[in-house]
């Protein structure tokens, strides 16, 4: 894979030039579908783009006693990690995608959440600390399921390489793992019923409380890119590969749209759960699920 293709994959599709407008589109689809389900009109098309530009024009806040360089670094790291995760997605596995690793993709998807936790603590605000503590607890509970599900998918296909996973024929265990990942996605994306860390009225937006202007715009962008990366991971691994380029892309986009709509419907249907209920949910139901998945794949591996 030559440099030009690599650059095209990173910057154009599915890289930055595709990912950033797609992130805005997905954020708009989520807001609009939640609004329509509540019989409201909702924001006009392109609203996340207007929000982004407006935030770029705000003045910097004065935060005495807080390390400004550190505060500015966290959203930058979060955006670059999630953009890298989007770039790594095996959208076109048979046509020369990135030679990526599932472990690398999972690590890149974890970094924005960790950045949010550290940003909450480095903002030296009481609300930031509470929000970060909640986010940390949430991270620990859903990550167990998320990583177990991802590992079970890789073990069932005998490979951790993304394009090998995407181009191999799917086994039923892969779909089991993908369903587990789908259950973890609302927590990863901070939507109802697991939107605890950024609760607006309870803890004044939690970790984001001291952020304003361009930094806040970057956080919104990284949130949108996390949507793309999470939904894209499920969509690219669920669609079986076809020899046609456009059919692959269309299938991934269509399934991605369906997943976004499903998560939005669940977000509109539920209210925010408290932290103990959330943790109990993830540890009880889905831990059993993930243990089942990984034990069956290991047994399958041992037998073959």
């Amino acid at each position: 894979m030559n440099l030009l293709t690599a650059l095209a994959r990173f910057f154009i599709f599915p890289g930055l030039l595709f990912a950033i407008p797609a992130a805005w589109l997905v954020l708009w689809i989520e807001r609009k579908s939640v609004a329509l389900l509540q019989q409201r009109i909702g924001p006009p098309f392109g609203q996340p783009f207007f929000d982004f530009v407006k935030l770029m024009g705000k003045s910097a806040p004065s935060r005495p006693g807080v390390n400004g360089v550190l505060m500015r670094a966290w959203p930058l790291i979060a955006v670059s990690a999630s953009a890298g995760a989007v770039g790594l997605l095996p959208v076109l596995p048979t046509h020369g995608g990135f030679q990526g690793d599932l472990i690398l993709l999972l690590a890149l998807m974890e970094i924005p959440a960790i950045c949010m936790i550290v940003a909450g603590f480095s903002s030296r605000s009481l609300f930031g600390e509470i929000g970060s503590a909640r986010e940390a607890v949430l991270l620990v509970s859903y990550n167990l399921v998320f990583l177990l599900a991802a590992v079970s998918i890789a073990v069932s296909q005998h490979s951790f390489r993304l394009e090998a996973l995407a181009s191999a024929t799917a086994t039923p265990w892969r779909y089991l793992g993908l369903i587990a990942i789908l259950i973890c996605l609302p927590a990863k994306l901070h939507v109802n019923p697991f939107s605890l860390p950024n609760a607006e009225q309870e803890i004044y937006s939690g970790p984001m409380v001291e952020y304003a202007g361009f930094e806040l715009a970057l956080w919104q962008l990284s949130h949108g890119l996390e949507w793309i990366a999470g939904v894209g991971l499920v969509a690219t691994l669920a669609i079986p590969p076809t020899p046609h380029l456009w059919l692959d892309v269309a299938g991934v986009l269509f399934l991605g749209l369906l997943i976004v709509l499903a998560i939005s419907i669940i977000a509109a249907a539920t209210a925010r759960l408290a932290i103990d209920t959330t943790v109990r949910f993830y540890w009880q139901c889905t831990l059993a699920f993930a243990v089942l998945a990984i034990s069956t794949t290991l047994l399958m591996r041992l037998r073959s």
Partner: protein
Amino acid sequence: MSLWTRLLCACRRRSPWIFHMNSGSCNGCDIELIASLTPRYDAEQLGVLLQGSPRHADILCVTGPVTQTAVSAVHTVYEQVCGPKAVVAIGSCPASTNAFIDSRVLVGPLDKHIPVDVYVPGCPPRPDAIVRGIAAAADILAERRDKTVASEAPVTSIANPEGARP
């Protein structure tokens, strides 16, 4: 005006994020403000989002006559809103203390402490009037050039309550 400035002004008008502050109100205006976010009046069709943190907002919506215990909070929150910003006084209480004019715990109408851009009269104002007030504040915000100063009116402070009025 350069292309970037025009784009920025258009986006400021289309994305007014509000922060709601109660400086001692009876909650009538607060209820109507929340009602303006419900499906019937839906302020989100203008891009309005109720934010949790003052740092995230552009427009500060204040209700209530300013009580002595609330006045320092009003100042703190106003400083925390990042420029360019606008202030909407919702109801007649922040405009003039309304029926509480003889009260000993009030420190006067809101414009003695922070510069106010839009007044929405009513006791309480209807939600559609509040949405119109926020839209007017968004228009004012779009025209604002300076990022730090809220309005051209001279700011009166606690030390100087009878500052010159335009």
